[in-house]
């Protein structure tokens, strides 16, 4: 009974696991640019379809930063069966960064030849819960940054300042100033330093209503800069990943870094 329960727990944790065939993790704001103080609503889900809900993404570590750099007001945090949802109050002019970016750990091991996986925020606790007969144990540090930005009135940059931790996009072009046919420039940072040769995959929203993904990839240059020309108005999912060995827990063999962003491009 105990082991069954444990297994069920592991399965639940797998919902946010990354490797090989990772689903896409995303935040989707109801609005990205508004002209009057108001609430916006944001969905958080894990899916293949962009942007169709499949599994709720946990929002326990949500951080919303207001235009003054202070935490903004969040209400109605709800974890549903296929999506999480919350409201953000836009009460002062400027840009709000909505992010879920707390690092975690991913543990892979084998028991009697069966591959097992577990995920959690505390590496030592994960390792302590390993069965005695576990073999081929690999601990991976995982930094997933889910991010989207919304603006009341004119955009500002206070909330967009990179934290210097994990993978981030320095938004040289403001994410709420994207228009059809224009080119955005962003600098990819890892721990605050430009990261060259990182691939960014982009998928336009609405995959349910077409037969091809229409995704494309851009790669950061030697200054870490990617240039993205928007092929049309709409919402876009973007994803960038890299890995290194700069782990913060010595027992981890590798650090996986991902940036998962949602932006909206408006018609010219």
């Amino acid at each position, binding site marked *: 009974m105990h082991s069954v329960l444990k297994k069920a727990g592991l399965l639940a944790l797998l919902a946010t696991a990354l490797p090989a*065939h990772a689903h896409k993790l995303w935040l989707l704001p109801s609005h990205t640019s508004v002209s009057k103080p108001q609430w916006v609503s944001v969905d958080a889900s894990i899916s293949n379809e962009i942007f169709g809900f499949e599994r709720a993404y946990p929002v326990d570590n949500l951080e919303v930063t207001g235009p003054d750099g202070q935490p903004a007001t969040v209400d109605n945090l709800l974890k549903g069966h296929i999506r999480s949802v919350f409201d953000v109050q836009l009460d002062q002019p400027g840009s709000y960064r909505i992010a879920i970016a707390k690092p975690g750990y991913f543990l892979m091991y084998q028991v009697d030849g069966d591959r097992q996986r577990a995920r959690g925020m505390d590496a030592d606790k994960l390792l302590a819960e390993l069965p005695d007969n576990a073999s081929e144990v690999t601990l991976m540090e995982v930094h997933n940054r889910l991010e989207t930005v919304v603006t009341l009135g004119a955009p500002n940059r206070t909330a967009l300042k990179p934290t210097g931790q994990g993978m981030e996009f320095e938004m040289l072009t403001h994410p709420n100033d994207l228009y059809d046919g224009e080119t955005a420039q962003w600098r990819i940072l890892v721990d605050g330093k430009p990261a060259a040769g990182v691939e960014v995959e982009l998928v336009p929203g609405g995959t349910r209503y077409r037969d091809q993904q229409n995704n494309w990839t851009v790669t950061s240059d030697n200054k870490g800069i990617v240039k993205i020309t928007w092929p049309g108005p709409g919402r876009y999912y973007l994803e960038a990943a890299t890995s290194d060995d700069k782990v913060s827990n010595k027992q981890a063999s590798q650090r996986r870094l991902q940036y998962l962003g949602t932006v909206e491009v408006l018609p010219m």
Partner: protein
Amino acid sequence: MRVVLTLMISLLAGIAVADSFRVEVEVPRLRVAEYHAPYVAFWVESPDRSTIVPLGLWYDDQEKWLKDIRQWWRRTGRGQQAPYDGLTGATRVPGTHQVDFAELDSLQNLPAGDYELIVEAAREVGGREVLRLPFTWPANRPQQQTVQGSNELGTVSLTIDP
């Protein structure tokens, strides 16, 4: 007498209209970051769709993705449940694969007329493609059709031997 009659009927039913109804499908090799073999469905339609005969399905027991074989789902899939009609099997790896549907009574018993064989492929985090291969039933002489897919399917051919 009754035994003889039953025997005759079963003999008649056992006479195949076509010896083979062979479909060759090329599953293209794709260079993508995340690859899953496509789900592929095969069925026969009459021009006005009054006759729909499901022939087969390649899938990996994940019913969740069946709706993504959208035409098949609409025409026949959504009205079925496992085990699905026709010859079913696991998804196929990239390469050329053959399947012969001649053993299906539902195909052999098709009323005479013009039909299309429809082959639809849908790939998880990939695309979808539908190909149509016309044929006439019953096949009085050998028939062959070949069409070329552009995304999720490569060359698909149908060979009917009477």
